[in-house]
């Protein structure tokens, strides 16, 4: 690794840590039980929304009602996104005249955006109208993120409230997340991105003449759509001279801002944040990376404030960093080492003052290795899934890092809200294990952890694990699953494992070689995304409901303090052990096998 690789990583972490406290304490104000300046400023807009939609803001919901409101709201969003895609050819703001999206792809995309996954089976530039992008996809970028934050806040209230039968009001939490956090932050980020060259307009695509003409090569197809073969069995191709280039346009910056900030990850363009119009400069890349961790990291501070003991929030944050930093550096180091398969050729992969060197396949020159490797680790540690380089072309170990970061359950920062409530499930498991060791009833944040809490926490931890393992097995055993694979050997298995991992942990990034826009993959991954997202949220709300009803237990000599280095280490170990035990066999067949083969 080069000095600059370390430097860029260090600067990122320092800036993130500086922003964490102001952002975290602002969010604590947004969800405060008592009025304050922030809430007073937005009250007219907030009250208008409640009045029009018949919401009684003062109503306190039990966990069941909270969960039902959340599910109905998300189902309504799902229906709208599906309908927009199926009807876009008759709707306005479709300057490229795109037709209706196929039913299976539309269903997959609707679930994908509602579940905060933003897995994209389709190619953006040639599928979705501006209207579908704006009213469907961009809106769900906000609302799925707001849902995640709302559920987190409700879960934290479960720890805070004593002898209560309610955990808050879903409409209020979701509306406040949107109005006070997501929209204003996104606007600032969108303008920063536009200043760097991210497009933001409603023009139709622009044709420009090419300086040097190029040749388009297309395979010839017969009337039935089959490729025509010549006598030697090769595909017949037709060459045409191309004299112009079509530059895509659109309201990209506004959508990219929330795509990063809400850990959504669905690109405006097919190449996502590798596209120069989506991520034009190293500075825009830095902003996009910062936007991914901003809310998940800030919420750790908010959590500490809400439970009245900031050390609890710092402990969770320290656990996340403890796992994130070595893995991020590992990803950068693996990519900087270059690709052994090119060693025999007359290629210079050494880093120098004149080039980044390393494994540049699928990477952009402006990002080189450091800004690509770091982005890869950040986007998969958080459940963002935006990519600024093609993960399918990562070295075997460089590809193992993002895959495993997702498999850890998206709790290393994770999705906005969902990452922290996932981590709280692990924290409950950790205090339970500690309790078993000393033979005491475990407590966390002053609440006794009993059978019901353990069942819900285990469910939250195990549902994504089970989905990944079972659905990868189904894909591998099914011809329709294997048919999508692009690369031979162990890497082909990695493509399938990565896809199911990404969907089942609501990440959304891909080993893009996999042809996943088929009915089989659309349905399989759609189900993974839906069940993982909502089963987990319901389990955590159920836990919160039961915790809220409990009395507060004052800490005693036998209570395990949950803000100490001991607990941080224990929690990190639990996360790593669950992730390693569940997935090492599968990883051995994919990236590890590929690494061992490429080393020879």
């Amino acid at each position, binding site marked *: 690794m080069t000095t600059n690789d370390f430097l860029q990583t260090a600067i990122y972490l320092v800036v993130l840590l500086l922003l964490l406290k102001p952002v975290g304490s602002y969010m604590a104000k947004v969800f405060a039980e008592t009025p304050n300046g922030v809430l007073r400023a937005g009250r007219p807009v907030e009250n208008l929304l409640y009045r029009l939609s018949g919401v009684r803001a003062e109503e306190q919901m039990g966990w069941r009602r909270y969960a039902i409101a959340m599910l109905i709201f998300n189902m309504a969003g799902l229906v709208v996104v599906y309908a927009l895609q199926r009807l876009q050819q008759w709707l306005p703001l479709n300057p490229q005249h795109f037709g209706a999206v196929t039913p299976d792809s539309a269903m997959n995309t609707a679930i994908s955006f509602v579940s905060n996954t933003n897995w994209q089976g389709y190619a953006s530039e040639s599928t979705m109208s501006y209207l579908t992008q704006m009213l469907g996809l961009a809106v769900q970028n906000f609302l799925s993120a707001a849902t995640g934050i709302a559920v987190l806040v409700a879960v934290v209230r479960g720890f805070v409230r004593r002898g209560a039968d309610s955990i808050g009001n879903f409409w209020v939490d979701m509306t406040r997340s949107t109005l006070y956090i997501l*929209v204003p932050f996104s606007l600032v980020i969108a303008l920063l991105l536009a200043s760097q060259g991210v497009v933001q307009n409603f023009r139709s695509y622009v044709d420009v003449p090419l300086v040097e003409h190029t040749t388009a090569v297309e395979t010839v197809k017969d009337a039935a759509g089959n490729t025509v073969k010549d006598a030697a069995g090769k595909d017949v191709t037709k060459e045409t001279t191309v004299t112009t280039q079509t530059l895509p346009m659109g309201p990209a910056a506004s959508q990219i801002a929330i795509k990063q900030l809400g850990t959504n990850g669905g690109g405006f363009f097919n190449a996502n944040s590798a596209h120069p119009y989506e991520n034009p400069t190293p500075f825009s890349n830095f902003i996009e990376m910062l936007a991914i961790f901003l809310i998940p990291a800030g919420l750790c501070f908010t959590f500490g404030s809400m439970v009245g003991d900031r050390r609890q929030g710092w402990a969770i944050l320290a656990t996340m960093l403890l796992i994130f930093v070595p893995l991020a550096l590992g990803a950068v180091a693996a990519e900087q080492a270059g690709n052994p398969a090119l060693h025999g050729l007359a290629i210079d992969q050494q880093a120098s003052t004149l080039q980044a060197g390393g494994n540049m396949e699928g990477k952009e020159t402006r990002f080189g290795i450091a800004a690509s490797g770091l982005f890869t680790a950040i986007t998969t540690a958080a459940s963002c899934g935006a990519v600024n380089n093609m993960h399918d072309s990562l070295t075997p170990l460089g590809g193992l890092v993002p895959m495993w970061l997702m498999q850890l359950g998206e709790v290393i920062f994770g999705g906005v809200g969902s990452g922290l409530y996932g981590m709280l499930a692990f924290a409950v498991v950790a205090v339970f294990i500690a309790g078993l060791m000393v033979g005491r009833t475990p407590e966390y944040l002053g609440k006794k952890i009993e059978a019901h809490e353990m069942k819900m926490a285990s469910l939250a931890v195990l549902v994504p694990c089970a989905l990944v393992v079972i659905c990868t097995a189904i894909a591998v055993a099914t011809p329709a699953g294997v048919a999508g694979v692009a690369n031979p050997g162990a890497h082909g298995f990695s493509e399938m494992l990565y896809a199911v991992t990404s969907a089942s942990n609501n990440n959304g990034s891909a080993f893009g070689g996999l042809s996943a826009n088929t009915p089989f993959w659309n349905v399989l991954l759609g189900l993974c995304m839906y069940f993982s997202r909502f089963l987990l949220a319901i389990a955590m709300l159920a836990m919160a409901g039961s915790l809220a009803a409990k009395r507060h237990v004052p800490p005693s000599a036998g209570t395990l303090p949950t803000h100490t280095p001991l607990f941080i280490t224990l929690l990190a170990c639990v996360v790593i052990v669950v992730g390693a035990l569940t997935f090492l066999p599968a990883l051995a067949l994919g990236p590890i096998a590929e690494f061992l083969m490429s080393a020879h």
Partner: protein
Amino acid sequence: MVRLIRSAIVMLLLLTAVTGVFYPLVATGLAQALFPSQANGSLIEKDGKPVGSTLIGQSFTGAKYFWGRPSATTPQPNNAAASTGSNLGPTNPALADAARQRIDALHAADPDNHAPVPVDLVTASGSGLDPEISPAAAAYQVPRVARARGLSESQVQAMVAMATTGRQLGVLGEPRVNVLKLNMALDAH
């Protein structure tokens, strides 16, 4: 339950108006007012007509032009309406084959150059539209372009230097050379 469903639908419509209409319109208005050139694609204009974008790479294969990053887009390279990487895995034989063909093409255009080829010149970019190459990749091509154009190497080097950007804020990203700007400057020379 009926009340919840009604609230859900109305709330969805209202928040769609806020996040799907109000927010992008405000962002567009502000971006167009503050950064009109950037928000409209960083277009290069000649006689009032767009002739390219500084952010979107074009494909070059002639000896007198600097070549950019290889592009995996179809049906033609640098197809800006269909951005994509190659998605070839690191151990896929097709990856090494593609790199070998690109080395051969570079050698065919410049038979006397026996230096190892900078890696970014033989590996496909992530977007297929990368507008830039590393300074190493530019330096590798200077002798060929100078010869093809009948210029001295120092003249070409000076133009490369003009198209070169360092790390942003001195530390972020990588130093790089904008290929389209460089080639347009060469043509205008």
